[in-house]
């Protein structure tokens, strides 16, 4: 039997990220907890980056979706700790990113390059080549870096591993 909590998680699977619409907030690992212990449902989310401008919209979209499903008193809480990591992104989410043309985070955040370390080797999402170079550590949004493929010559975004 499906619990109410499972049902809410399932609804959240339909809320997409405003900046990367192929990912849901669940794929992103942004939703940490659905808490039904109190007198109203609480959805706990955690920001990807401190200044992520999408967080307010994500909060509104979660409330909107659940309102649409008949839950009119949902509270969305932002929690900072433990901090979000790309390890929480689902495998399905990573695959969708690659299909969308964004290279997903490589490996685990535990082996992240230390201070003043070398950039990671990243696979091109277009042709699959490993022959890529980093153009800039910073990309179109805080969560991405800019890479270029030396095989197919295409530039691409890499979802930084943090």
């Amino acid at each position: 039997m499906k619990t109410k909590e499972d049902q809410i998680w399932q609804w959240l699977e339909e809320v997409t990220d405003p900046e990367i619409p192929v990912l849901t907030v669940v794929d992103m690992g942004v939703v940490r907890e659905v808490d039904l212990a109190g007198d109203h449902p609480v959805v706990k989310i955690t920001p990807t980056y401190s200044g992520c401008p999408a967080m307010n919209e994500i909060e509104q979209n979660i409330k909107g979706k659940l309102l649409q499903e008949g839950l009119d008193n949902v509270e969305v809480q932002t929690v900072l700790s433990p901090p979000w990591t790309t390890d929480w992104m689902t495998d399905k989410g990573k695959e969708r990113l690659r299909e969308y043309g964004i290279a997903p985070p490589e490996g685990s955040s535990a082996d992240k390059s230390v201070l003043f370390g070398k950039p990671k080797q990243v696979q091109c999402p277009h042709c699959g080549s490993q022959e890529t170079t980093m153009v800039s550590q910073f990309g179109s949004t805080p969560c991405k870096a800019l890479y270029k493929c030396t095989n197919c010559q295409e530039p691409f975004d890499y979802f930084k591993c943090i």
Partner: protein
Amino acid sequence: MQKELLHYTLRLGDNALILGHRLAEWCGHGPVLEQDIALSNIALDHLGQARMLLQYAARQKGESYTEDKVAFFRDITEYYNLLILELPNGDWGDTLARQFLFDTYNYFFYTELLNSKDDHLKAVAQKAIKEITYHAQWSAEWIIRLGDGTEESHQRVQKSIDDLWMWTGEMFTMDEIDQKLIEEGVAVDLAPIKEQWHQKVAEILDVATLKKPQDDWMQSGGKQGEHSEYLGYILAEMQHLPRMHPEAEW
């Protein structure tokens, strides 16, 4: 509410807010698109960190306060950021030299803040350290590129470092607020940070073929609310709209 903790929170929040504001001034003016984007991203990280800290400050001040009220309705003497962060951006080399000197400090500082006994400051540090590590890596690489670049870039960035040096001492000064909170395990002891900073800065400057300036007389006062005229102009621009139209909303 504990007076020292509030002051300390504001110091950290104001550092992030004022540097974020300064870096945002580069938006649309970077030398190449990628670096324009890089600085805008870094500015955004600082602004995000400022929000987490000023929300915490607002919570300490009481129910009628919000992060916006703390940012927009405090006067210049109630701002406690480091003076180096309010200096005008100067040229690309000046901005990058300031980033390098401050990012390196910030990296060691926040690494230590991870051990704070204050839960909120600790949570902010856990979040921020990932971003700050990126910043520190990026600005150090730029210092090496400029220092070990052309004759002109070498000379100019050396001058930037030399000019900024007297503003670096303030990063490591401690007063009774630090002392009290260090005893409680909340604040970071800046003495070991100073050593780590000098070592890392020397190492990077060496790779960059730049000279590390000698410590001499140092500027201070920002942490206690004594500022240069530059902060006044920043606040005028930043606070103008909310003060003219306190009820304004997006």
